[in-house]
């Protein structure tokens, strides 16, 4: 079994086998993180660049720790205090970076598709660390890893993704990820925050994605409840009336949890708006697995860095060759 992508840009493009290989590798990497010496020499002499055009602490730190546990040299290239704020075009930035010969580049950008454009001009593989409302593949993979750890199997589970589906790259990646592994996916949220054609995202497993506008119906019998972060700026516009209104209709608390399976787990990609999408008591304790998600994130990102760091036999994209 080999990983068939040169870069990791989306879950949509991954095969089921690719996903399985990443999860198996991440499981092995988790053991490395439990050793007293949490470092292996695998990527010694390799350079990983974190290219973050959008502020991020968690994901950037997670990639940073992952790269360091594999002995790679890591350079952070972030938007503030760099030429990114001097209006250099993205592709010029990418080409400049390429001339410094990085071995792997991790990209986050507020616009969907930017990591792909950068991958097209770079010789190095690119990992999408979140692009606009498109995808956040490593988040979905670490979510799969966490659910598999808790539930054993993904196939046959019912996963409810709750909240701002329309603006969430985490939702899109997870819809693809869980449907590819055979779970049935429900999206739950107010009509203003659920895009109309979302059911079709399941792809090959068409019909696997169902839409609910009532929290109670949406989580009824679900095994996994995944709350999404509601961004405060959404309340300013016409999408949501108020924070309290949202918390009252779609916020999860212990009382509402009883509609789900008895052993349902609660997930959140973080950072949590306490008291909005998740009640305090659910944020800190079981059945919440939020900190397991964070812990698995490091192992999962080690796996992705490892799998993409082989001298790929897949050809570089034509644009890069002609540079």
């Amino acid at each position: 079994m080999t990983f068939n992508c040169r870069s990791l840009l989306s879950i949509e493009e991954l095969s089921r086998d690719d996903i399985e290989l990443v999860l198996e590798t991440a499981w092995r990497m988790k053991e490395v993180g439990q050793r007293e010496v949490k470092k292996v020499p695998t990527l010694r002499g390799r350079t990983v660049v974190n290219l973050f055009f959008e502020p991020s602490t968690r994901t950037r730190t997670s990639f940073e720790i992952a790269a360091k546990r594999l002995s790679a040299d890591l350079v952070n290239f972030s938007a503030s205090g760099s030429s990114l704020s001097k209006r250099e075009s993205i592709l010029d930035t990418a080409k400049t970076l390429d001339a410094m010969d990085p071995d792997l580049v991790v990209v986050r950008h507020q616009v969907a598709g930017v990591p792909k454009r950068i991958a097209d001009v770079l010789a190095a593989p690119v990992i999408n660390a979140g692009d606009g409302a498109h995808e956040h593949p490593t988040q979905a993979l670490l979510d799969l890893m966490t659910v598999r750890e808790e539930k054993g199997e993904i196939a046959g589970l019912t996963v409810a993704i709750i909240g701002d589906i329309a603006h969430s790259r985490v939702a899109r990646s997870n819809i693809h990820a869980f449907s590819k592994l055979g779970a049935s996916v429900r999206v739950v949220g107010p009509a203003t925050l659920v895009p109309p054609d979302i059911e079709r995202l399941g792809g090959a497993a068409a019909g696997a994605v169902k839409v609910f506008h009532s929290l109670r119906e949406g989580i009824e019998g679900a095994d996994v409840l995944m709350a999404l972060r509601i961004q405060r700026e959404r309340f300013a516009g016409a999408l949501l009336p108020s924070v309290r209104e949202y918390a009252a209709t779609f916020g999860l608390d212990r009382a509402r949890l009883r509609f789900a399976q008895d052993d349902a787990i609660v997930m959140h990609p973080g950072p949590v708006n306490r008291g909005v999408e998740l009640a305090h008591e659910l944020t800190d304790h079981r059945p919440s697995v939020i900190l397991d998600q964070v812990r698995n994130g490091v192992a999962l990102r080690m796996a992705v860095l490892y799998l993409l760091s082989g001298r790929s036999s897949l050809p570089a994209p034509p644009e890069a060759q002609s540079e």
Partner: protein
Amino acid sequence: MATRDTELPALPATAPVVAAPRVAASLTADVARGLNPGAAAAQVLLDDAAIRRALLRIAHEIIERSADPTRLYLVGIPNGGVPLARQIAHNLREVAAVSVVVGVLDTTLYRDDRLSSAVRPRLRRTEMPSAVDDRQVILVDDVASTGRTIRAAMDALMDFGRPRAVQVAALVDRGHRELPIRVDYVGKNIPTARDDLVKLQSDADAPESAMQVVLLRGAGEAR
């Protein structure tokens, strides 16, 4: 499985390479699973009885050379070394009534010759049940050859602590050493060509089932 119909050792080092490494791996996997048995000229070098005799002798040698057998720690290198380490531990219990710790240590993340490979090899499991500090650690592998796996295993081992001594046991020693590494306990020395593939076949799920060491001519990695 193929019969013992050809002379064993020493093909010239220039023997033609018939398969790329990845093809070879799937080929042996097929042979191991009993699919496709005629596909490669798989030749049995050691049958189950010979392997069990060799492992019993190794257990006796380990006892002879161990000042304090209760400090022994066997570490199997996957995949081939794992059932062998388990069997040696069983033998040590029988011949010396000592119960030794058995661990599993994957060397993939420590290898020096995989950096340039096109495809990252799959990782295998590592399970080190207790600390290696002050133990007499014996690394167990099925086939010793270049010494690179053993070098990687030593590096990996040092990340788990500071053993009192590290020794190496291998069921088969093929020669072709590329590093200054010695095998302390050898089941059998078998000269082979560099591009042959020698492999222990066993059923990981059934430790009591029959094992054998086979040779696939020209199916290994040519260097």
